[in-house]
């Protein structure tokens, strides 16, 4: 009788504060962490100019892309709307696969947003061409290729871009 009573009286652990503790942890993680993933256009810069001698390129191999101080886009001296840039570049690169040069010129007052959009158009143009070639050659999209096949596609459509220092000061 006595024993039994003691057995029944073992107290339960009070767990009502577990919720508060886990709330604290949750709030701590909400404050110290961030959700944004880093996305962007991956580009390769050339080494400093002193180390590589300037090469002569024939003028008809060059597509001159210019952004002036008012963010106006010109291709070979002709003003075009930014939406057309991608198709013009794709057409030019397709016509002269291995010897083409895209020459980029900006002004010091050009906004970064305009420059970013231009880079975006260039990446899009090359991606479009490489995708098409990859479908034709391997029957698969560029994203599904293995490393060597991707290298082959990249060599078939090499990116040849030259960027000169921005011209000085505001003059359009």
């Amino acid at each position: 009788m006595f024993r039994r009573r003691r057995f029944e009286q073992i107290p339960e652990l009070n767990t009502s504060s577990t919720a508060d503790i886990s709330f604290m942890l949750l709030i701590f993680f909400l404050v110290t962490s961030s959700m944004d993933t880093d996305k962007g256009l991956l580009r390769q810069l050339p080494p400093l100019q002193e180390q590589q001698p300037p090469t002569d390129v024939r003028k008809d191999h060059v597509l001159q892309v210019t952004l002036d101080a008012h963010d106006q886009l010109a291709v070979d001296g002709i003003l075009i709307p930014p939406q057309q840039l991608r198709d013009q570049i794709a057409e030019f690169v397709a016509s002269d696969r291995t010897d083409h040069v895209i020459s980029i010129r900006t002004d010091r007052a050009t906004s970064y947003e305009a420059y970013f959009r231009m880079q975006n158009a260039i990446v899009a143009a090359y991606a479009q061409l490489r995708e098409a070639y990859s479908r034709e050659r391997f029957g698969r999209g560029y994203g599904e290729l293995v490393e060597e096949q991707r290298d082959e596609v990249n060599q078939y459509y090499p990116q040849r871009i030259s960027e000169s220092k921005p011209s000085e000061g505001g003059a359009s």
Partner: protein
Amino acid sequence: MRRMQSIFRRSSHDMPGLNLASMPDLIFTVLFFFMIVTHMRHDDVKLRYQVPAGTEVQKLQQKSAVINVYVNSSQIQVNNQLTDIDHLAGLIEAERKKLSMENAERLTVSLKADKHTPMGVISDVKEALQKSFALRINYSGTEAKEIQ
């Protein structure tokens, strides 16, 4: 009358309490969700910037080999430290030394620049990066379906 009141009282007394036993489990689930989808913020950004939007942006791989450079028209910040254009190249070198050998080889600089920054500033930054041989750069941007 008295009988009525007693019935009324009784029903009010019998209101059951909400069972909170599963509350910790629920909160733990939310906690684990956040622990998985987020990552620790390691930079304390001291300047205001808004990256441009593009359609071709890709996720940046190998987070451990990345140096963040924040730029707006007046200020530059490298990882956690405000700096200016003259000290940028040196600071990149110093940050690179902190990385392990393999990471230093495939170092990528993520350029988080405000969209209204003039290209003059960006060009100076890029020149400093060339000087410190950090040649792989990532123009950071948000993803957009279409650019207007």
